[in-house]
């Protein structure tokens, strides 16, 4: 119990320090923190659902884009906090509908479906804009500074980690682990597989929607090609996998180094970025298939065992 309290105090202090950082950094530093926090939240939210259930979802950008579009459509019609709530509700609604229809799919079928979902949403938005509103690009003129966006993302990241922590110690977390290991066994032990998966999928999707909604004011102009960029989905997956999707801090430990690495690569090797990115993907799958956190735990255990043997 005391360990938990100490943990919470430490995390709280870290959050305070992070929230204070923009005052010490220039615009680029804030931009970097903002982008990093965005991906930490995306990867952590993705891992909430995909980590325990082992469902690789490529639908991240579908929800991310829905969030951004909601802000673009409503930013002038209602106050900003209400826009965020609406975006979250829309994300939740879409996730429930989609989840009900598809979470019975498993394995590669779900991967393909989730990728298709992102494209479907993009085409639907495009169709609607073309045939109903008659414009495609939309403008967001909200007076929200980068620091404010960063604070919102930081708060959302903290909430995401808190949810992850709570799930891992609750009955639903245990149920998820069983589902991830063997769905048949889980069904036989009386776990309501569909409901658990649906709940997690909905929470994860809502958070991802909010990330898109919070980040959108930074771009001024959005169109489907900009906010439904599939790279977001791929980067989220690879970050979570690098860190380890089954650990609470795993996605964060994957997202931060990769984000910094991409930043460094695009600055120093603008022409070779894609090649290096591809090699990285291969390397991660080969070398750390379960993530660096699990790898570190293995090494730690091995060292302990050696010690014990001596």
């Amino acid at each position, binding site marked *: 119990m005391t360990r938990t309290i100490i943990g919470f105090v430490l995390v709280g202090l870290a959050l305070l320090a992070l929230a204070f950082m923009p005052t010490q950094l*220039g*615009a*680029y*530093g804030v*931009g*970097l923190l903002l*982008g990093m926090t*965005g991906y930490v939240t995306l990867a952590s939210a993705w891992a909430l659902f995909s980590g325990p259930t082992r469902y690789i979802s490529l639908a991240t950008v579908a929800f991310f884009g829905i969030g951004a579009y909601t802000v673009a459509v409503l930013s002038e019609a209602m106050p900003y906090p209400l826009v965020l709530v609406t975006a979250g509700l829309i994300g939740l609604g879409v996730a429930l509908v989609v989840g009900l229809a598809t979470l019975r799919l498993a394995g590669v079928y779900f991967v393909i479906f989730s990728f298709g979902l992102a494209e479907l949403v993009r*085409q639907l938005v*495009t*169709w609607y*804009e*073309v*045939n109903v509103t*008659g*414009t*495609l*690009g939309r*403008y967001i003129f909200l007076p929200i500074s980068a620091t404010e966006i960063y604070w919102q993302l930081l708060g959302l990241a903290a909430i995401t980690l808190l949810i992850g922590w709570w799930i891992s110690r609750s009955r639903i977390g245990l149920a998820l682990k069983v589902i991830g290991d063997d769905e048949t066994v889980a069904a036989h032990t009386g776990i309501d597989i569909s409901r658990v998966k649906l709940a997690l999928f909905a929470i994860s999707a809502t958070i991802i929607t909010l990330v898109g909604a919070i*980040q959108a004011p*930074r*771009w*001024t*102009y*959005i*169109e489907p*090609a*900009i*906010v439904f*960029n599939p*790279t977001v989905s791929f980067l989220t997956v690879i970050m979570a996998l690098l860190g380890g999707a089954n650990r609470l801090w795993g996605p964060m430990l994957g997202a931060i180094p990769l984000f910094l690495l991409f*930043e*460094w690569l*695009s*600055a*120093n*090797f*603008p*022409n070779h*970025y*894609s090649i*290096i990115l591809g*090699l990285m993907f291969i*390397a991660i799958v*080969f*070398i750390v298939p379960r993530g660096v956190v699990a790898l570190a735990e293995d090494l730690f255990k091995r060292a302990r065992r050696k010690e014990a043997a001596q």
Partner: protein
Amino acid sequence: MTLISRRNALRVLGTAVTLLAGVSAAAVSAQDRSSVKIGYAVSITGGNAGGAGITTIPNYRLWVHEVNEAGGLELPDGSRLPIEVVEYDDRSSAEEVVRAVERLVTQDEVDFVLSPWGTGFNLAVAPLLDRFGYPLIASAAVTDRAAEFAERWPGSFWLLGGGADYAGALAGVLGEAHAAGDINADVAIISVADGFGIDLVNAARETFAEAGLNIVMDRTYPPGTTDFSPMINEAQASGADSFVAFSYPPDTFALTQQAQVAAFNPDVFYLGVGTPFPTYIGANGDNAEGVLSLGGIDTSNAALMDYRQRHEEFIGQAPDFWASQMTYAGLEMLEEAIRRVGLDREAVANELSTGTFTTILGETTLEDNQLRDLWWTGQWQDGVFVALEPSDRDGASEIRLPKQPWQGQ
């Protein structure tokens, strides 16, 4: 599974990282304040790389090469400073382009930032550059709201016009041809369901009606469409003498091919982005003759023809006949403004806004921060994409109608 062991993979990876780190250390070492730092973030990879690779990047490189060849940018006191370039890839992502520009301004502390490629990306960086007090010469952004943006961000300059300009000019061209009895009043339009296509078709619906034209077919297709035969057949059956497609490069090329296969020979054949590319005549040869599109050049302009020659020699490929010249002219204006007022960014923005410049486009002045002396409609004639509209401007060519039937059937 033992083909690539984990140990070997780690070893290769380690070597690669060491090599990369070594190269980049060498790349950043030259840092002395005897130069003018110019930075830009463009789409070198990703979905926008095609357009940026034809219109934007070659012109930036050509300009930097030429300026440095001449000893550098000239300052008001007559001294010259060479340009040092900081180039980033925005990976065709809006978030990346925003952060790359933040880095250019606050980390690299560049003196000037050149514009990215694409309407959306220019708009993404415009508020940022305005806040930092940097001018933005948006040379690859088509927007009808340029006047509003110039007011919102006083240091932003818009060189490529808006969708309504292009559609309005086309309405003028077709309306005149109809009045002269060359074509009937019926027009078949298809447009790509993307920002560009929608802007143009919306404007066309209004202006075509005003010009006494009758839209008998109006279809929109999603980006990435490859089979246009149903639309071509419908257009053929509609009896319209004019076929207009507000298309993107891959569609533009596909439409040209598929119209030939269908032996679809309307009197007016107008296509969108991609038609003024040098690759278009490369792919279609004599069959490009008579095809209409956006942009065009005035072949009697010696400075422009000289620029095209230099571009081809340095880049190895001719520039396109539309946005390339505006991109280069924007750079010339920046160069000249620096020569007149120095490196003070506010003064440069002010000079760009009020000054008159001699560029490859001729005498160039901006009206309300926008370049309005543009060629809106052009046509392939004898292997050159010449400008037609505005027809009362010096250097405009006469339209040739009807377009010759496809050759080599």
